């Protein structure tokens, strides 16, 4: 039983590719069904955001699992070949896969470390898996743990504070250019997480007109609904640049989306009315030369950082602390996972029974006084045979069921019935109530 992840993110793949492979909620059921149809894939979850598409799965065999998910990606989009895709994929198994999920959920792998949206997105992915019964005991446990790690990172370190302050810095800067934000028009290019966050901050400041554009028209329309704005096709968003007092750019494209010439023309058409541009993309989406355009004020993430006055060193330390938290939690989950193997459980169960037998025999022998060796043998034999007979059923069931899809449930149950300790940890890794009540769903 192995947990693996295969995916691509803003660190490995251009936005065009990520968008091709994105799995919208509406197609989640179909995608998950397709994933679970691969032999050896027992549980699955798809995390699809603007910045990443990742498939988490519990598989029998790591290598076959990897190739199954690669194939899954290739078949997600017909135009895609494995050769095109492979250079952009990363894959991890077991400890590293869990650590990856924890880091992602803790926003340590985000474009802007500490951005708050990813936690919600992991929850959504998990809900999708639960709705379509694609996750089982192992994923449920791990993802729930990931979500709690994500929350822990947020509450116990200051990295999310920083992401929020980046957005407020954008608003504060905007207020140094415009005295009254309410009458201003915002153009949001792309749907990067930080872009949305900054847009939300601006809306909170009373901005009413918002124009949205992204390569995926549907996403723009969805967002337009959320912000009560207007979606425009990506191809001709430049025509709307002239109306934009504030431009928020977060497309995740690997090249410049807004050129110096675009801004020069817009400012001229705006008859020198100032333009305020925020580039929250890594790499940059707005040509840095825009800073030379009169009456155009461009700020990128680094500038916002400077504005926040965030101490880089301090932030690095906070991130390190978060990484430490992730590491600790990974080892807890690993211990729990190890306990889910049939063999150690059987061994532990036997040990437990043997220990009881030994103590009880000892007690009985002490009470009986001196016995002949034959009599001693009879007492010991009696105890052994009782234990063996009692254990026979459960052990056979464990051995056979462990091979089945929901085998871990039996192992987990055995561990709890007999109160067997987790390996390398004491009791921390046991399932919580919620999970037990969910199990019947997966048995159906």
């Amino acid at each position, binding site marked *: 039983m192995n947990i693996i992840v295969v995916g691509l993110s803003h660190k490995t793949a251009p936005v065009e590719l990520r968008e091709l492979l994105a799995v919208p909620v509406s197609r989640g059921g179909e995608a998950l069904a397709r994933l679970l149809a691969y032999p050896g894939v027992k549980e699955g979850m798809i995390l699809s955001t603007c910045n990443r598409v990742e498939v988490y799965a519990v598989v029998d065999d790591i290598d076959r699992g990897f190739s199954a998910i690669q194939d899954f990606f290739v078949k997600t989009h017909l135009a895609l070949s494995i050769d095109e895709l492979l250079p952009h994929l990363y894959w991890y198994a077991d400890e590293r896969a869990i650590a990856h999920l924890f880091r992602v959920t803790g926003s340590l792998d985000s474009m802007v470390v500490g951005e708050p949206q990813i936690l919600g997105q992991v929850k959504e992915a998990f809900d999708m898996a639960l709705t379509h019964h694609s996750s089982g005991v192992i994923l449920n446990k791990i993802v729930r743990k990931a979500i709690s790690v994500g929350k822990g990172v947020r509450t116990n370190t200051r990295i999310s504070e920083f992401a929020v302050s980046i957005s407020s810095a954008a608003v504060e*800067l905007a*207020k*140094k*250019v*415009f*005295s*009254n934000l309410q009458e201003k028009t915002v153009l949001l290019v792309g749907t990067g997480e930080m872009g949305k966050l900054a847009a939300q901050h601006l809306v909170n400041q009373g901005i009413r007109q918002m124009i949205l554009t992204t390569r995926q028209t549907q996403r723009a329309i969805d967002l337009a609904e959320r912000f009560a704005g207007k979606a425009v096709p990506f191809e001709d968003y430049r025509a709307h640049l002239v109306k934009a007092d504030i431009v928020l750019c977060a497309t995740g494209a690997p090249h410049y989306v807004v050129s110096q010439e675009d801004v020069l023309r817009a400012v001229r058409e*705006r*008859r*020198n*009315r*100032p333009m305020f541009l925020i580039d929250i993309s890594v790499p940059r989406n707005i040509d840095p030369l825009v*800073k030379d355009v*009169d*009456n155009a*004020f461009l*700020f990128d993430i680094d*500038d916002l950082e*400077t*504005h926040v*006055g965030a101490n880089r060193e301090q932030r690095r330390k906070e991130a390190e602390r978060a990484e430490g938290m992730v590491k600790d939690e990974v080892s807890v989950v690993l211990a729990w996972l190890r306990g889910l193997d049939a063999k150690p459980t059987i061994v532990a169960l036997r040990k437990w029974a043997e220990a009881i037998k030994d103590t009880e025999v000892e007690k009985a022998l002490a009470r009986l006084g001196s016995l002949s060796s034959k009599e001693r043998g009879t007492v010991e034999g009696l105890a052994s045979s009782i234990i063996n007979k009692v254990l026979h059923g459960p052990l056979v069931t464990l051995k056979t069921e462990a091979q089945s899809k929901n085998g871990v449930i039996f192992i987990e149950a055995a561990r709890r019935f007999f109160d067997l300790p987790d390996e390398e940890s004491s009791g921390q890794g046991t399932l919580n109530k919620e999970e037990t009540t969910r199990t019947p769903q997966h048995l159906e």
Partner: protein
Amino acid sequence: MTGLFFQVTMVLYFVGTIFFLIYLLRRSEALSKVALGIAGLGFLVHTAALIGQTIALGHLQIIRFQEAMSFFAWALVFVFLMVVWTRRLHVLGSFILPLAFLSLVTASMAPAEVHELSPVFRTVWVHVTLSMLGTVGFAVAFVAGIMYVMQDRLLKSKRFNVLYSKLPPLDFLDTLNQRSILLGFPFLTLGILTGAVSAHISFGSYLSWNSEQIWALVTWAFYFTVLMVRITIGWRAKKAAYLTIVGFAGVILTFVGVILKNDISLTSL
């Protein structure tokens, strides 16, 4: 007595200026209240001085150079207090009060002997007052322009320092710039017209093409152009800021020219 009032005013404006300048460099907001209080007190004493002078002379006399400069300072502080009243924009004081103080210093440097004026010249105060009110408008535009350029540079170079945090938003400064010129321009126009009428009454000709008159016309044409290019080709924001700085520099040069020539007679204004 009036002279003492003027001196007290000067001292108060000076202290207020110091406080306002320190305020500009400190994070604390408390200092601006002290500075504002001092400026307000200075304004009251200044007003009392002007009223006292008017009562003493029996008529309003804003004719000679130092009277004009003193009135200019008074009107400037008045406008400043009005802006602070409506916009709570204390930082404006860091720029306007020094200007008011310097005007008073300039006024005090001019010879103070009082000529008895022939009645025909007594109407000249209308011309001087209107011209000075126009100049106040341009001075505020100038200050707004300086603040604009400073904030523009700070934003462009991404220096988020104390000054950056205190300066108001760019579009506010641009609006202040435009409105100040819009207010100042009609006053200057009327000032020039009344000046021409006064000149006609005094000397028999509307225009004698002396340097001050030429400068007044150049100033008028300049600010007219500033307003026009804003409306027609959208020269607002940074361009307008630079134009008004240059424009007021011209106005100051005119005044300096007047002082250097030591020609403080009526025709100079």
